[in-house]
């Protein structure tokens, strides 16, 4: 049965058929027909944002916290160009998004028409794939394809550019089941011979480590479950990248903390000294590896990744396994069990002793104060007071992000939303709104810095309009803290442009937006302030005035290997050499 309808209606129909319940967007001339269709239905909630960048980050928060693709609708020209930062962010962090953009009518394309931009050209390098749909008969099919591409293999953002005349034109609607199977079908099962080889190494390894990443979370809850089973059954220590936090529980007995530039001492030393590194869905990012030449010099490296281009890109590995982490873990456990569940128990015991020795360094130690709130202390109190809640955390980018990663514990996947690859300041507030849309009853907290938070603060209007009780926990040091820290360490303490002058009064700002705010500066008042924030039934901004010059430790200085970490202030003099200073 063919159903004839306009392109605009097809868009809504296709979204409905794809199970979409929420769209984040902003109207404009080139998408008016689609907005007219949105007006005439009730299945899909449209969240009106204040800036298109916010829409994309909201969709990222929605996607990351649900495992479903996030959907965005923007107009042509500036609507689409404003989405570019969010698209790039989603591409680097492998977040599935479907972004629909309006375009000038096909007969005006190429004439520099009003609000015309070469959207597919501009977004080609920052999407997994994109399409310009010129034929209304292909529109529905393209949207279904878009969902398939965004969610299969290594997830990522796709963009579909829809000229206005295509939205008005009429054609037959095609449902998701009526289109021929997509040619794009990435392999999911790993090579069983390679998996068996890895099992043999697990049986013998004296100092193995599981190095897990965002791929475990993207693979779905089953992968996290299998990771827990593998780690707990074998006794192999688990560390994770920033993107992978929560896949293995922070309260789990094998957890040794996050690794990387601001990772834990024990995690980085274990990476450096291991003899078998099992990389599950991580990509040897430069924040993780430090100096490549000295990266884990004595280990055999296995790498499970669904993206062939991730394998051997940065670090050459000995056992590449191309496949979905969940499928590979399932096979790996099967093989390991069938071979008699062997591990090198005596050696593992010694390995854990060594790790416990590193742990006793207590690398997250900081000198607390009863006069001023230390940002680390604020994180510890936030953790203590929110632990039992159904909690989701988003962050902006900078020192506060690292402190959140260090001091907050995540026991479940999909609970931690942060901009890892692109490092987008301004991500956290809109992301928290996207998370809250998906989980209306949950406690959603954006851990922010003052500078990052200002970058997309207009979205507080969205939070208030949709009665989304997002909590904005701002560690306010009146600085661009991470920039200031680097200037202190590598630019002779010349603090060029790294302070926040003329900051708004966040409490008055909250009132101006129609929500509630509070400020806290005395460590003695911190718990009550956090409790007030949690208990308030609505969006809340908590302005936490913290120590202005606190540095984030531990830290692997640029250009240094894992075993040359800085643990505190005393060790920072002249630590970054000129070669390291050119790195970011």
């Amino acid at each position, binding site marked *: 049965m063919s159903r004839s309808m306009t392109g605009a209606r097809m868009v809504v129909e296709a979204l409905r058929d794809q199970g979409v319940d929420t769209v984040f967007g902003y109207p404009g001339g080139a998408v008016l027909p689609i907005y007219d269709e949105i007006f005439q239905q009730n299945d899909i909630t449209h969240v009106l944002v204040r800036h298109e960048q916010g829409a994309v980050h909201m969709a990222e928060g929605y996607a990351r916290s649900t495992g479903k693709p996030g959907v965005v609708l923007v107009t042509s020209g500036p609507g689409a160009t404003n989405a570019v930062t969010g698209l790039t962010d989603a591409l680097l962090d492998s977040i599935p998004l479907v972004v629909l953009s309006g375009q000038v009518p096909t007969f005006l394309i190429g004439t520099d028409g009003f609000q015309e931009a070469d959207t*597919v*050209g501009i977004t*080609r*390098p920052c999407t*997994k*794939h*994109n399409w*310009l749909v010129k034929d209304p008969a292909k529109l529905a099919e393209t949207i279904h394809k878009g969902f398939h*591409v965004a969610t299969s293999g290594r997830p990522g953002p796709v963009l579909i550019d829809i000229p206005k005349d295509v939205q008005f034109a009429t054609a037959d609607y095609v449902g998701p089941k009526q289109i021929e199977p997509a*040619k*794009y079908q*990435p*392999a999911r099962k790993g090579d069983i011979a390679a998996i068996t080889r890895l099992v043999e190494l697990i049986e013998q390894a004296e100092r193995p480590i599981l190095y897990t990443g965002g791929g475990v979370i993207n693979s779905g809850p089953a992968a996290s479950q299998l990771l827990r089973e593998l780690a707990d059954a074998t006794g192999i220590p688990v560390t994770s990248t920033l993107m992978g936090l929560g896949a293995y529980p922070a309260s789990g007995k094998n957890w040794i903390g996050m690794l990387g530039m601001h990772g834990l001492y024990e995690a980085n030393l274990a990476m450096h000294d291991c003899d078998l590194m099992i990389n599950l869905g991580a990509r040897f990012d430069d924040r993780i590896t430090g100096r490549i030449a000295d990266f884990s010099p004595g280990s055999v490296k296995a790498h499970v990744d669904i*993206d*062939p*281009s991730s*394998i*051997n*890109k940065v670090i*050459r590995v000995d056992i590449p396994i*191309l496949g979905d982490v969940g499928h590979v873990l399932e096979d790996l456990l099967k093989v390991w069990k069938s071979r008699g569940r062997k591990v090198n128990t005596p050696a593992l015991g010694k390995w854990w002793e060594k790790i416990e020795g590193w742990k006793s360094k207590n690398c997250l130690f900081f000198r607390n104060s009863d006069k001023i709130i230390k940002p680390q202390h604020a994180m510890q109190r936030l953790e203590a007071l929110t632990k039992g809640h159904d909690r989701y955390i988003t962050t902006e980018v900078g020192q506060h992000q690292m402190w959140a990663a260090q001091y907050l514990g995540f026991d479940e996947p999909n609970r931690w939303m942060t901009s890892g690859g692109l490092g987008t300041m301004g991500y956290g507030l809109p992301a928290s709104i996207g998370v809250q849309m998906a989980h209306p009853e949950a406690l959603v907290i954006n851990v922010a810095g003052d500078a990052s938070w200002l970058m997309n603060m207009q979205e507080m209007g969205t939070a208030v309009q949709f009665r989304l009780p997002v909590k904005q926990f701002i560690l306010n040091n009146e600085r661009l803290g991470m920039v200031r820290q680097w200037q202190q360490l590598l630019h002779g303490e010349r603090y060029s442009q790294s302070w926040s002058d003329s900051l708004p009064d966040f409490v008055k700002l909250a009132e101006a937006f129609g929500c509630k705010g509070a400020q806290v500066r005395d460590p003695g008042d911190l718990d009550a302030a956090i409790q007030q924030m949690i208990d308030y039934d609505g969006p809340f901004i908590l302005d936490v005035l913290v120590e202005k010059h606190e540095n984030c430790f531990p830290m692997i200085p640029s250009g240094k290997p894992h075993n040359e970490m800085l643990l505190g202030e005393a060790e920072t003099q002249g630590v970054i050499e000129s070669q390291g200073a050119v790195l970011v």
Partner: protein
Amino acid sequence: MNALNIQKGMSSHSAYDLRDPNAEIVESHTLAVLVENEPGVLARVIGLFSGRGYNIDSLTVAEVDHTGHQSRITVVTSGTPAVIEQIKAQLGRIVPVHEVHDLTVEGPSVERELGLFKVRGQGDKRVEALRIAEIFRANVVDSTLESFVFELVGTPSKLDAFADLMRPLGLADLARTGVAALARGA
């Protein structure tokens, strides 16, 4: 073409591929990329090379299967073995790319390029140009009293050699198609 049955996205595992993956030697490789002929697909491939800092030494593209809308892009690129593997993996990741073949390692292959050479000259130089063209089995496709246009098909190095010989004889203009390549055998 498909004798080794190398799948999209896999690295080449020819038994004869004994290159050291960590070698720093820059090699030239000819890649055949079979793509869905949809708008922008060439821009995606070229954008990958410029965006990630890879080299394109030569590039040809044309639709080779009109019913299946399949195009074949032949790219000659250069880089260390690790970079070449990365280029292949990155190409394989582009959604409308169906197959990536590294003709340089997958077995023997034929490479051909077509060149058009305009040579201006009179007297002895003109006679000499025509004589050399005969040796190279180039065809004369246009002629005036003071010029020839030669058409020559061959490997890129044969075209280079011909151009070098024609230069002192009045080579005025030159157009080359870039390399088209196919694996040898059935």
